[in-house]
């Protein structure tokens, strides 16, 4: 019996979106997604891999949508309406509004929960 070797997420194809996504617009991609712009409330990104937003992420994002829980979501300003990684669904706590300027952040699954931490470049 041949067992399928798990594919590394970063080996998947990457889609580069060179514009902002406005309400009602969506991106659905089997791979990683990089957005050079903002993702506004009401916009949607669904990717089987990682999602990176070089702007403000205020819409809905689902990374690792086919079940890969190593997927991450990174944005210069990470304030999504809802954030999903694999089968985890999270939303910002009620009452958290505009916190003003925040550093870039990454969301990932650790110990079966979605955690958000400041973006750390890989060394």
């Amino acid at each position: 019996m041949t067992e399928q070797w798990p594919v590394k997420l970063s080996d998947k194809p990457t889609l580069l979106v060179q514009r902002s996504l406005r309400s009602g617009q969506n991106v659905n991609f089997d791979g990683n997604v990089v957005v050079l712009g903002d993702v506004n409330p009401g916009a949607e990104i669904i990717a089987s891999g990682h999602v990176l937003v070089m702007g403000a992420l205020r819409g809905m994002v689902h990374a690792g949508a086919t079940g890969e829980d190593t997927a991450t979501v990174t944005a210069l300003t990470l304030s999504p309406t809802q954030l999903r990684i694999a089968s985890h669904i999270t939303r910002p706590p009620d009452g958290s509004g505009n916190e003003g300027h925040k550093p870039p952040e990454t969301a990932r699954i650790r110990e079966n929960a979605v955690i958000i931490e400041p973006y750390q470049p890989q060394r």
Partner: protein
Amino acid sequence: MGKVIVVTSGKGGVGKTTTTANIGTALAMMGKKVVMVDTDIGLRNLDVVLGLENRIVYDIVDAVQGNCRLKQALIKDKRLENMFLLPAAQTKDKTAVTSDQMIELCDKLKDEFDYVIIDCPAGIEHGFKNAIAGAEEAIVVTTPEVSAVRDADRIIGLLEAAEIRSPKLLINRIRVNMVKAGDMMSVEDILDILAVDLLGIVPDDDAIVVSTNRGEPTVLDSNSRPGEAYRNIARRICGETVPLMSLEEKKGFFGKIKSLFSGD
């Protein structure tokens, strides 16, 4: 060759019709030949806001279906002789007109007029698609409310998809005191999300309700603050550079004396 500008918003009740009426009237006051087209078939309002409802004989559906000549459906304004209205039909629905017919209509109108201002219905369905079909430029109206801004964002996306590039934003009904207190979205907050060019801001004012109900666009009143804002917007549409008006409440006589002493 005139310009065809659609006034749209997505959300209802943010002031598309009031904006159309006032910008149209302000452009006509500047001597431009203007026609306003109401595309909200079945829910027509623009005729009421302009005070022309009792002069309607033919409407846009009659005009595009050939029941009358286009000239017959155009209603000349009772105040300004270079301003016309093409009213919507009230007893039909949005499917009475097709996008191709709208394109043809706009082409005919822009040969005759300097500005063709199209009042778009709320929503993103057939009526919206008709309204933008013949337009070259767009004014997106929003109010400082999260829901209105969300819909404006959706509309801008749809306009871009329809190749109406760089729509201009008009922020309506702003209340300075509430913005200052942090209870209302500021112009900056809105521009941060929508990222489009700002055409103008119009302050919230009770006078608008009165003028709308009377069928007298507020730009005709030289003391009206929203009227001044709309006149400035019309000048910007004509290519002039006009600074944004200060939104501070006008001080009364005593206010002026007070500020003389307090030095602000």
